[in-house]
């Protein structure tokens, strides 16, 4: 009914309502913006469950799965990834067409860089329109299923409208929504066909179902409370897996050989129902963007919320210290062995360099760093390409210097053995380009606002120069000393290592 296929990427929201004055009432509001169906869901706690489910269905698509396995940072840095996703969805579904156009262009540039072949040499391409259609389809279907499972199925009109919004999203991204059937009625056969014919038990899907939540690192804000986080995760991790599996379409569960757990269906429906009850909370209590941003806050940062949470964390730390001091003495543990330098190198490798968390340093890891910086600084062309090129140059330098066994990637061992020789000219080039793109006004100083854009925090008092700016030389020097693993706890640390 709402064919957005003819719309250009820039002409979405406002055009629709202008063009169809005779539509029923629920269609008159703009497809994007605060009155959309999507926005209502966005603030619904059930959406957390349905997003996990959608991501699993996404990852079960062989092309998406391969792209995720190769490139995604969600295993090693899930909270940063979540924050970026939430910000992106907000921009895409917001009321401002110009913001949407820029975000779509950014996503397209980002996706254009994600290409390759999976373990069976089948090519994948994040720009493939059919694949992108499927990703949007999983979001729509999971939202609908979320309502069904929690006992409040969507009205026919609402479902049509939500579908139109998701098609408009795809159109904003792709230029047209031709790879999603035009109506909801035609959508279901399409969906069932993909589920039955195309989805596989991919590695990425298994990682999300069984590894991600069991190993989920604490969000930056809660870094101070590792024991509490681990305890909560040990209970919640497997539960999320079971709930998600139980909510997947039956034909797919059968084909992928996913286990049927007794009671899982009841548990899953209970979870959706319980999360659905949270809609009776007062308005504004649950704001996903607020929560995602809050979790990604750096406790050492200068955001007032970080400070109050920081105070809370300090209290929890003190309480933890007291509990440990009061606890009966455990048997004396053996002193840990191992050489310090090597351990530090390995820790740096895991926390900073290996962005995809697969145990190897490869181009996708450095690309993920470039992606993160480009996202934070909201870079446009040609700065984004300059940044990627600089990182690519650094990758070639690293590969030449460190990949001693010639498998095309750098292992922890290879890195730890060669650590001192890391700061070559290409890394200096990365630092310089990073400085240039951060210095948006081109005065060859990074001032407080530019600094905040990159690091999401203010200057530390001892670091800025006398005039409250950061000179190119100091910026490059600090970056090199961080990247060579010589100095931690700089501003770069939260930039690249925060979960």
């Amino acid at each position, binding site marked *: 009914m709402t064919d957005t296929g003819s719309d250009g990427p820039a002409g979405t929201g406002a055009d629709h309502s202008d063009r169809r004055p005779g539509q029923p009432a629920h269609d008159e509001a703009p497809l994007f913006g605060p009155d959309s169906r999507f926005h209502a869901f966005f603030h619904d706690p059930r959406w957390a469950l349905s997003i996990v489910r959608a991501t699993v269905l996404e990852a079960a698509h062989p092309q998406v799965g391969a792209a995720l396995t190769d490139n995604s940072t969600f295993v090693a840095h899930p909270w940063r990834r979540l924050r970026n996703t939430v910000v992106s969805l907000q921009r895409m579904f917001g009321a401002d067409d110009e913001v949407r156009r820029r975000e779509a262009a950014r996503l397209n540039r980002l996706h254009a860089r994600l290409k390759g072949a999976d373990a069976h040499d089948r090519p994948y391409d994040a720009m493939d329109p059919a694949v992108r259609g499927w990703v949007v389809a999983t979001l729509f279907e999971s939202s609908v299923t979320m309502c069904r499972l929690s006992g409040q199925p969507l009205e026919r009109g609402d479902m049509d409208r939500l579908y139109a919004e998701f098609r408009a999203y795809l159109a904003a991204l792709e230029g047209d929504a031709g790879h999603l059937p035009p109506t909801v009625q035609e959508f279901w056969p399409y969906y069932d066909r993909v589920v039955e014919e195309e989805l596989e038990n991919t590695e990425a899907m298994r990682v999300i179902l069984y590894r991600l939540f069991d190993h989920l690192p604490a969000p930056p804000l809660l870094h101070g409370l590792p024991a509490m986080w681990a305890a909560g995760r040990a209970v919640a991790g497997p539960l999320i897996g079971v709930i998600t599996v139980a909510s997947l379409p039956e034909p797919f569960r059968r084909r992928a050989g996913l286990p049927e757990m007794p009671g899982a269906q009841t548990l899953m429906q209970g979870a959706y129902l319980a999360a659905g009850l949270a809609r009776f909370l007062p308005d504004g209590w649950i704001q996903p963007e607020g929560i995602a941003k809050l979790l990604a806050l750096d406790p050492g940062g200068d955001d007032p919320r970080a400070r109050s949470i920081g105070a809370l964390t*300090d209290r929890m*730390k*003190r309480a*933890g*210290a*007291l509990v*440990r*001091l*009061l606890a009966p*003495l*455990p048997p*004396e*543990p053996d*002193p*840990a062995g191992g050489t310090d330098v090597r351990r530090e190198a390995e820790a740096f490798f895991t926390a900073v360099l290996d962005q995809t968390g697969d145990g190897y340093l490869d181009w996708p890891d450095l690309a993920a760093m470039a992606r993160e910086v480009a996202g934070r600084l909201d870079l446009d062309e040609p700065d984004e390409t300059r940044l990627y090129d600089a990182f690519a140059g650094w990758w070639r330098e690293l590969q030449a210097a460190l990949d001693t066994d010639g498998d095309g990637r750098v292992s922890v061992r290879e890195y730890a053995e060669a650590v001192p020789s890391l700061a070559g000219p290409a890394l200096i080039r990365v630092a310089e380009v990073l400085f240039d793109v951060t210095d948006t006004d081109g005065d060859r100083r990074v001032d407080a606002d530019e600094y905040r854009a990159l690091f999401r925090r203010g200057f530390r008092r001892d670091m800025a120069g006398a005039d409250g700016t950061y000179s190119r030389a100091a910026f490059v020097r600090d970056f090199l000393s961080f990247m060579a693993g010589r100095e931690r706890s700089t501003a770069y640390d939260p930039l690249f290592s925060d979960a």
Partner: protein
Amino acid sequence: MRRRTVRPSPLGGSVTAEEVIDGSAVFPDPARGRPRGEARRRVPRHVACVMDGNGRWAARRSLPRTSGHRAAETTVIDVIEAARTAGVEWLSLYAFSTENWQRPGSEVDFLMRLVRRVVRKHAPVLHLRGIRCRFLGVTDPRIPPALARDFADLMTLTGENRGMTLTVAFDHGGRGDIVAAARSLIRSGVPAEAVDERSFAAHLPFPDTPDVDLVIRTSGEQRISNFMLWQVAYAEWIFPPVLWPDFRAAHFLECLDTYRQRDRRFGGVTPNANGERRP
């Protein structure tokens, strides 16, 4: 037959006949009966104790040296309480020097276990009294990780307290601290001309620690033994003959009184060269 112990100690040297336990008078609360301002002024701001004589105390009683260390626990708690009540703002205790590692392994092991037990036992009380606890030194890898963890926990627990600051020098050496400060200074790239006493002191561990006003070394030994060398530059020293396990609040207050009689001139130098008064 007094043995010359070269190091300060939680565990002293051998027995001496002339050591006295009760040769000191008990002094009343120094603040009592005086105008408040005057009393405050005359209480030393930073008192440090070199806890000497545990070993001799034990040997005098034909007990193993370890029991001397055990007996020291009571004194430590007594002195902390006395200092806090008397209005001392900073109290430092020399518990274990970098040279004490030369002691027999079994004694070192015993000390580590003892200190851990004492720290854990008294942590809640120290916290409730508003005492901020710190451990100066604690860098040697031979320190058991569990003990280091307890030290860190106690520092975390009491870090925000605003009462007296208790610094326990553990695995501490005054020269080592100065060398560490020099290293840190060189690393920060300060030009030689820019280094003065104040900026140098800012690189010492816990740079907010003020200069020591009074050092009490028990058991009659009269040595510095590499204790907080930088901070004791203008300290008054008192050497009560009492062995540390017999040292009590009364002796502590007596030392404060002796300190009050002293005429401190600082050789014309201002006191508290490093460290600002805490709010």
